[in-house]
């Protein structure tokens, strides 16, 4: 990241620098962190194929949540409830699956996520409450729901088809979690960059009044982005349940900070109007790599949290600096 910063301040009016700095920060950051760990941890197994593929597998749920958050933040909103949405969805899927089978379980998991998104979205779009407060409230609300649903117990997921499809399985030699990540990124990127809906999301986040007088239904966009976020958090819940072969209220609990960091580092502006799905993917992989490397370096959980927090601060600083120019 330092290299990108100096390049920009050297020529603040350079057209290429100006439009690209924030978009490329994540790639420089990714590369810098990768090289740092590759050198420092070369005897600790960081560079093994097994470790690197583990990073990708572990970040799959966060990456998928990050895609939803790119849509939400691009529209100028925020979704703080994704963590507890993950838990509620995973538990809903596990409980339903054990009684009614695979398909019902999957539908219950995704449905729970979409319903949380619908609730958030309706309150933001039509009751016109700020998304920060709405999703802060639903974060707490569904954290409570997921605890009371199962009395804090862990629900085992024993359906082999499910755990294969959403967790430990593979297709054409590629792990299913990587398939899910790739599909979500590809579809998300296409919708975000190449459809009218994607353009309208950016317009609403950029200047909602202009979007409104241009005939874009601002409430409908706000509702939709929060439902996308809820639905993708639901999918992330299924992936957690599939990989861990169990669902518990703690799933997703600590993901919020990681996901927000991934999205912001990935070039999505906090205030909307600009963002990147690919950037969020790289940002998420970077956060995963950071976690992995810090663990291999022997840092404690609390130290890891401190480093993550500092990274977010740096990312926000770059993001706001860029916006004010």
């Amino acid at each position, binding site marked *: 990241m330092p290299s990108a910063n100096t390049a920009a301040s050297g020529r603040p009016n350079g057209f290429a620098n100006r439009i690209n700095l924030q978009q490329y920060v994540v790639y420089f950051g990714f590369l810098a962190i990768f090289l740092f760990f590759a050198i420092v941890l070369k005897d600790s197994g960081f560079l093994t194929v097994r470790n690197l593929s583990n990073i990708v597998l572990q970040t799959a749920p966060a990456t998928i949540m990050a895609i939803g958050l790119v849509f939400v933040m691009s529209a100028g909103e925020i979704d703080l409830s994704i963590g507890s949405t993950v838990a509620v969805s995973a538990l809903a899927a596990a409980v339903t699956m054990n009684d009614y089978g695979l398909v019902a379980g999957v539908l219950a998991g995704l449905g729970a996520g979409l319903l949380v998104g619908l609730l958030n979205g309706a309150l933001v779009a039509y009751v016109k409450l700020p998304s920060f407060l709405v999703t802060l409230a639903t974060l707490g609300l569904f954290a409570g729901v997921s605890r009371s649903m199962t009395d804090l117990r862990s629900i085992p997921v024993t359906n082999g088809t499910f755990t294969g499809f959403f967790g430990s399985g593979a297709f054409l030699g590629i792990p299913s979690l990587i398939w899910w990540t790739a599909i979500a990124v590809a579809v998300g990127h296409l919708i975000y960059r190449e*459809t009218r809906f994607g*353009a309208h999301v*950016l*317009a609403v986040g*950029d200047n909602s009044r202009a979007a409104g007088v241009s*005939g*874009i239904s601002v409430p409908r966009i706000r509702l939709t982005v929060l439902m996308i976020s809820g639905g993708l958090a639901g999918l992330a819940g299924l992936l957690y349940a599939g990989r861990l072969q169990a669902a518990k209220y703690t799933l997703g609990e600590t993901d919020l900070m990681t996901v927000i960091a991934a999205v912001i580092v990935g070039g999505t*502006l906090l205030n909307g109007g600009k963002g990147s799905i690919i950037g969020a993917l790289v940002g998420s992989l970077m956060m995963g790599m950071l976690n992995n490397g810090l663990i291999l370096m022997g840092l404690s959980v609390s130290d890891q949290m401190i480093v993550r927090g500092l990274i977010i601060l740096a990312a926000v600083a770059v993001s706001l600096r860029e916006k004010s120019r």
Partner: protein
Amino acid sequence: MTVNAEATQNAPVLRLQDIRKSFGGIVAIENFSLEVYPGEIVALVGDNGAGKSTLIKIISGVHPPTSGTMTIEGETVTMSNATMARAHGIEVVYQDLALADQQSVYMNMFLGREPTNRFGLLDRRRMIDETDKLVKELDVRIPSAHATIRDLSGGQRQGVAIARATHWASKLILLDEPTAALGVAETAKVEEIVQSLKSRNIGVLIISHSLDQVFKLSDRICVLRRGKQIGVRETAKTDKNEIIAMITGLQHS
């Protein structure tokens, strides 16, 4: 429309008759009648609070009039929102321009009306080509259709907003204080662009506080005072003193 070709030539694009608008008990506009012909620039002048903005909102469909009729090319219309006004070929250049600052010029040109290809994806090629063409025709000097709005100067932004209105307006463009925030050179450039709209055979209704500008650009001047229409003058047959007297209600020697 069932009018013959000759009549269309001379028919106004916009005719307002006995427009009255009240908010609760407060009358904002009364007895307002005005016609705007194709290729004509009509200036709307009046002091702050005279009702100019209300009138723009009535014509652009934001506030339907309480009573009175509005006809567009001889067809009586009732509009209840801005989308309906746009469907009738009326475009507004708002004072704040209504541009999305972090998007490209071409995305702003097509904001809310983006064309798609047969796969349902954005047709960027077409948006860029049409933007380039129009920007060249109107001589709006921007670096490229890909430029981001926030990288443009005030005059360039105003140019983009007018170009967008020109692209979509088939009948009438409403300009709300188009040069209020601009410097001298940029004002001259924007005035040139507004002037060039006449050749496109669309009507232009412009609100301006600058009488110099009004006399430079307009064919006719309509004066409002406290919601009442004081009069309409042909620009060539009046002078600033008369217009100022009409605006203020005071006689100048």
